[in-house]
């Protein structure tokens, strides 16, 4: 579904991504892991079109998208939950959700019920400002918001940062459900091994801006962890 070939990315003078290759299958749930600062967020931003890559190709369903703008990618069906959530703080929860509607391909004019089913809190909070929500609620809102555009791929950047345990679990369940029941392709950046193991089906390990290991989650062993995830 997504193929990234020889992606390079620089911030000014410093190169962050180095000839990065990555392939994500349709319907998979891929977990990207790596130490702080290896470039996970950067990679996702490139994928979403929020950072222009210096060089390389990104294919979405076989078509190159590296030149297209972020809004076009959203319309193609890439949903993005950024690190730090990036809720629109002064919009109400409802407005945060409504924003994505025009990007849907089916022209639906109201927020799909499914989202409130997945995250019942959102219904209670509908008229509060997004910025006033607590962290966990914001995280749920961010995921719900990404789902509004009816994505084919859902990108989640550390969705559990600062979230209370029971909601972490709930998010995990939702992601698994979306992936398994609805066949949604999921790309997940996650630091916590437990969660990654429970939710992810595949893993990719990153080091110094490139993907250095890729396999099924079951095969993530202590050796790899020590090599790439320890300090």
């Amino acid at each position, binding site marked *: 579904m997504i193929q990234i070939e020889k992606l390079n990315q620089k911030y000014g003078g410093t190169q962050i991504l180095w000839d990065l290759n990555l392939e994500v299958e349709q319907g998979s749930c891929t977990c990207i892991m790596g130490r702080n600062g290896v470039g996970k967020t950067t990679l996702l931003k490139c994928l979403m079109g929020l950072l222009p890559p210096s060089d390389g190709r990104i294919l979405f369903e076989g078509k190159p998208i590296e030149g297209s703008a972020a*809004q076009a990618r*959203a319309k193609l069906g890439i949903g993005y939950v950024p690190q730090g959530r990036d809720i*629109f703080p002064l*919009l109400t929860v409802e407005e945060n959700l409504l*924003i*994505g509607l025009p*990007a849907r391909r089916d022209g639906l004019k109201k927020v799909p019920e499914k989202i409130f089913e997945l995250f019942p809190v959102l219904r209670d909070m509908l008229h509060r400002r997004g*910025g*006033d929500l607590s962290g966990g609620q914001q995280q749920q809102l961010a995921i719900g*918001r990404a789902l509004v555009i009816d994505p084919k791929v859902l990108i989640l950047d550390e969705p559990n940062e600062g979230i209370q345990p029971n909601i972490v679990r709930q998010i995990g369940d939702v992601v698994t459900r979306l992936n398994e029941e609805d066949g949604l392709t999921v790309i997940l950046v996650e630091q916590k091994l437990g969660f990654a193991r429970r939710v992810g089906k595949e893993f990719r390990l990153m080091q110094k801006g490139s993907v250095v290991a890729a396999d099924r989650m079951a095969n993530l062993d202590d050796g790899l962890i020590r090599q790439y995830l320890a300090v």
Partner: protein
Amino acid sequence: MKQLLLSGCLLFCLLLVSTTWAQSESAPAAVDGLLQQLTEASLREVGSVVEQLERTGGESMRPLFETMLAGDLYYHRQTGALMAVDKNAEGDRIGRDVFSGADLGVQSRRDIKKIRVNNRLRGQLRDTLARLDLRHGSTAEQRAAVLAILDELTEQNMRLLQRVADTDVNGELRELIGLAEAMVQLRDSSDRVVRIAAIETMSGRLENPVRNQLRRVVNDERESDAAVKAAAQKALDRIDGRMAFFGSMEQLFFGLSLGSVLLLAGIGLAITFGVMGVINMAHGEMIMLGAYTTYVIQQLMPNAIEYSLLVAVPAAFLVSGSVGVAIERGVIRHLQGRPLETLLATFGISLILQQAVRSIFSPLNMQVVTPAWMSGSLQINPVFSITFNRFYILLFALAVFISLVMILKKSSLGLNVRAVSQNRNMAKAMGVRTELVDAMTFGLGSGIAGVAGVALSQLTNVGPNLGQSYIIDSFMVVVFGGVGNLLGTLVGGFSLGVANKFLEPATGAVLANIIVLLCLILFIQKRPKGLFPQRGRAAE
């Protein structure tokens, strides 16, 4: 010699006053001589000629007086014939018989000479016409005529009034005439009871002559009757009380009207600056473009000035709006995320636009005509009136405000623009076409500024500096109200306006302005985010 003759004539006429009044309908031969005199008299002398014409000619002289008052009365240099002269569309001077209206054809500029009128004469002609109106005019004209006569309660005028009162007139007119009678009684009668009754009638009336007369009575040292004096004082107090009330009504209206101007000036900025965060120094020039659009529209439709403003509003929106879009696409777009740089760029743009207007239209002010329906005022009573242009502009400002709020509330643009301004990248990632939103928003804000320009063209100069005179106020209003809050702009505009106007009588315009500014500075200490701050965690 001539002088002597003239005054003799005058004396004669005065003697004949009553009789001539009765028979004035048919113009006697004496009139011809007087008309002849009209062409020869100097400005000072014309007055007495007019007086005689009124006596001899009466109502039949009305067309002459009206033509004269309008400044259209000419005479032929050779023949001495009087005529009314109008200019037609080509600028030719067309002569017309004053009395019959018969066309006398095109007149050469050199052949004819104007019968000059000055202010004094115009005043006299007005009074004359008022007297004619009193007998022959419509009710409104009669009313106006009686009011005019209150100033000049001569015996002759009183007789005139009595005659009118005898005919069948409506209650208000009768009341006014009664007032006039009371004033005469107060002045002339020696009977205390009559006088006090007269004062009773006069009490609480807001007409100027009434007040002046009462004041004269109160201040008159020779007036020995203490009871009359006291009654007059009481009546005067009552009048003053009513006047004070209407005075504050007037101030309130002035304040609201100034507020509406501030609102209009600030409202476009509330979008481009308040919502988008662009420090738009070219905002004033957007207003200016709207005003110039009004001018151009009026040039294009000189025969339909009454409707020009209706056309100008959408036109100005389009003109300023497209310039706004062009600015956004050409410049602002490159300054994404650098709101302060927009200050610099738009400052540059404002210089360019000013100079462009100077080059295209000349540095002079352009003449924008006020349509008749916006001129004049609604006279609510003799001391309180509401000027139409201010009133319509007040309504217009509210209408613009409401439509803007509607656009932002009801369309997706409003939501999108807020999302974009809060987090551009995330908006992109949600599929919002941020560039389109930016262009539309900036266009909307600029377009609204243009619309404001149409309104302001009715109040002030349409010139290259128009924008600069409003830019400071605009920012002040938006910030005072709370950046990003449209309602704040509304409340801010009106409260600044009203505060200014209530201070002004006590302090004068400049000090009022200074005091308001200082209060604003102190107010911001109390509420560092304006009247209506954005709340919540995110606003910190």
